[in-house]
């Protein structure tokens, strides 16, 4: 087999390059076929370290395969294919090319056998995802792209310092399970968590993703945060701080999404919410919990892309993305509406959807570890997901009120991509065995027990009841909600201005004092000169300057000899 030792990431990278330089028809073929070849390459690779080579003075392993790595790479390749199908007719060439290079970075991270390789692909993702953000083509997306790039370069820098620290202190570049016990490992952890949109850096995600093109957000939703989850699974399983980081993210996502008016930003916040479940699972760290994290990441990429595709079609057809401008679209967009609802049910982990067969593992893992508080919080959060994404998104976009908009339904390729993912959401909800077979170990629990199904049905349906009873409190307003990024977008500048004003005031005051002091001194000298007729006739500005210089030189000589 030709692909037994060939890095699959390079196939997508080559495709990205070819897609940019070819004509539209050839480009369509390239972007649709390359992910399938990548998928084949991924599945041709046996387990283990397949390539070892030297880079500078280090021995690196650019290609290492294990079941969980293969699982993430698989869903990334599926995502690249479906994303290409969704976007090849409308996306800019640069966007498609960048999205493919970005996807190749994600797959590269999956198979990175050492920290240096991981870092290189990590930076690839940062660069090309920024280009995808910029392809939004508006002033807002240009600015959001710069903020996005700064965040991810910060993530890269911290990761790099951490990696160098680990190498200097241990001599090892291996990707192996560790805990955040020293500064080096903390820096690696923080670098990864920035990409996972963990606090206090969560805001880059809802800041950048909604400003992209209708197609760009679909790609962006899949790769960055989920490679971070994979990196956490590989490097920090059982790191307890992740449980609390995860729980924070879960509720942060819900609360901010509840307050949000922009439909795509609602979905962006719910990415953080969902990644929070995975981060929490990695923190729990048992085999079942890690399986749950990997499974949930797989399912999440599919239903979240589906939701963003649905929102993308709405944006593409109407130019609108605010709930206050939308509503009633179900009349003319049945396919987009139904696919959006299926994605919404899956993200809420309704029984018979992929969210149910994957996320349930995480709460069972918490249950088995007797993490009572965590379990209750996860249950409350599951209800909250239905509230903020499961109902809120379809309700405000497709129902709510009649906005008067009567847009056409999705173009055929967008509809095909959505139907494919909607099909996967349901298929993996009914029959998840192919997914379970990809797992690194067989620790799973059966989810379709009658009492479990009833549990989740009650939890979710009564959340739905709460939504409609509290609808008056959910009225959308033309607002945004301040986040911690306010600190570096506004507060720092205000502080800077304050400091500047304070310094100016001090300077003015100091000038005044010194001048008046000098004036007194000069008047004294004038008196002297008038009395004795010495050389000190410093009545002009030049004379005063000469006097300053003389004083300085005297000081200099004094200091010189004292030293």
């Amino acid at each position, binding site marked *: 087999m030709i692909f037994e030792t060939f890095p699959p990431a390079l196939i997508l990278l080559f495709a990205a390059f070819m897609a940019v330089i070819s004509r539209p028809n050839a480009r369509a073929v390239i972007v649709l076929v390359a992910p399938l070849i990548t998928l084949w390459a991924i599945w041709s690779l046996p387990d283990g370290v397949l390539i070892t080579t030297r880079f500078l003075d280090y021995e690196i392993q650019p290609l290492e395969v294990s079941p969980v790595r293969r699982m993430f790479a698989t869903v990334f390749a599926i995502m690249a294919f479906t994303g290409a199908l969704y976007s090849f007719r409308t996306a800019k060439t640069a966007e498609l090319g960048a999205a493919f290079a970005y996807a190749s970075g994600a797959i590269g991270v999956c198979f990175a056998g050492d920290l240096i390789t991981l870092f290189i692909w990590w930076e690839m993702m940062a660069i090309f995802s920024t280009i995808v953000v910029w392809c939004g083509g508006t002033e*807002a997306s240009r600015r959001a792209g710069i903020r996005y790039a700064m965040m991810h370069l910060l993530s890269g820098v911290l990761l790099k310092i951490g990696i160098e620290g680990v190498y200097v202190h241990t001599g090892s570049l291996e990707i192996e399970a560790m805990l955040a016990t020293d500064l080096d490992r903390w820096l690696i952890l923080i670098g990864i968590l920035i990409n996972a949109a963990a606090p206090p850096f969560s805001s880059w995600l809802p800041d950048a993703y909604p400003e992209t093109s209708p197609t760009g957000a679909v790609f962006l939703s899949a790769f960055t945060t989920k490679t971070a989850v994979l990196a956490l699974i590989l490097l920090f399983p059982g790191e307890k701080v992740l449980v609390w980081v995860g729980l924070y993210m879960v*509720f942060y996502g*819900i*609360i901010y999404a*509840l*307050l949000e*008016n*922009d439909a795509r930003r609602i979905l962006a916040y719910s990415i953080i919410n969902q990644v929070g479940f995975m981060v929490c699972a990695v923190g729990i760290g048992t085999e079942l919990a890690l399986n749950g994290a990997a499974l949930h990441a797989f399912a999440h990429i599919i239903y979240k892309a589906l939701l963003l595709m649905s929102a993308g079609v709405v944006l*593409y057809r*109407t*130019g609108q993305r605010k709930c206050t401008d939308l509503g*009633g679209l*179900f*009349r*003319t967009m049945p396919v987009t509406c139904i696919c959006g609802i299926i994605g919404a049910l899956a993200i809420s982990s309704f029984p018979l959807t992929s969210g149910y067969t994957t996320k349930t593992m995480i709460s069972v893992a918490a249950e088995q570890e*007797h993490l*009572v508080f965590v*379990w*209750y919080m996860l*249950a*409350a959060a599951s*209800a*909250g997901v239905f*509230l903020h994404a499961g109902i809120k998104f379809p309700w405000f976009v497709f*129902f709510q009120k*009649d906005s*008067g*908009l*009567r*847009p*056409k339904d999705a173009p055929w390729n967008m509809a095909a991509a959505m139907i494919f993912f909607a099909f996967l959401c349901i298929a993996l909800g009914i029959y998840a065995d192919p997914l379970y077979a990809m797992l690194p170990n067989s620790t799973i629990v059966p989810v379709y*027990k*009658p*009492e*479990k*199904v*009833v*549990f*989740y*049905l*009650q*939890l*979710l*349906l*009564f*959340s*739905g*009841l*709460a*939504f409609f009873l*509290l609808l008056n*409190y*959910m009225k959308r307003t*033309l*607002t*945004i*909600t*301040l986040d911690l990024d306010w600190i570096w*977008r*506004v507060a720092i500048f205000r502080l800077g201005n304050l400091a500047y004003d304070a310094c100016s005031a001090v300077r003015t005051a100091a000038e005044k004092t010194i001048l008046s002091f000098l004036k007194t001194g000069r008047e004294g000298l004038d008196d002297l000169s008038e009395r004795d007729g010495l050389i000190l006739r410093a009545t002009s500005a030049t004379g005063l300057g000469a006097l300053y210089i003389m004083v300085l030189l005297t000081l200099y000589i004094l200091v010189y000899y004292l030293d």
Partner: protein
Amino acid sequence: MAQTPKKPETAPDGDHWLVRPENIRKIWIGSIIALAITVAVELFTGTAGHFHGVDEWFAFPAVFGFLSCVVMVFVAKVLGNILKRKDDYYDL
């Protein structure tokens, strides 16, 4: 790209069947029946609780789900009062 209003699925009275008040009423009634059934079924399946606490009480998930949502909506409301700004806040 808003098109001129055309209503292909219109009923005789001028709007989609899904938005007519009498049908919305029927949907509410149907939903409430569905809610009641999901609770009643627990009598037959037993509880999914595990910790021997409130999680094993009858209809715990229903009450817990409902109350969690109420709490989250109100927390969001309170935070919103402090943190909400006009959506051109950063553009100025």
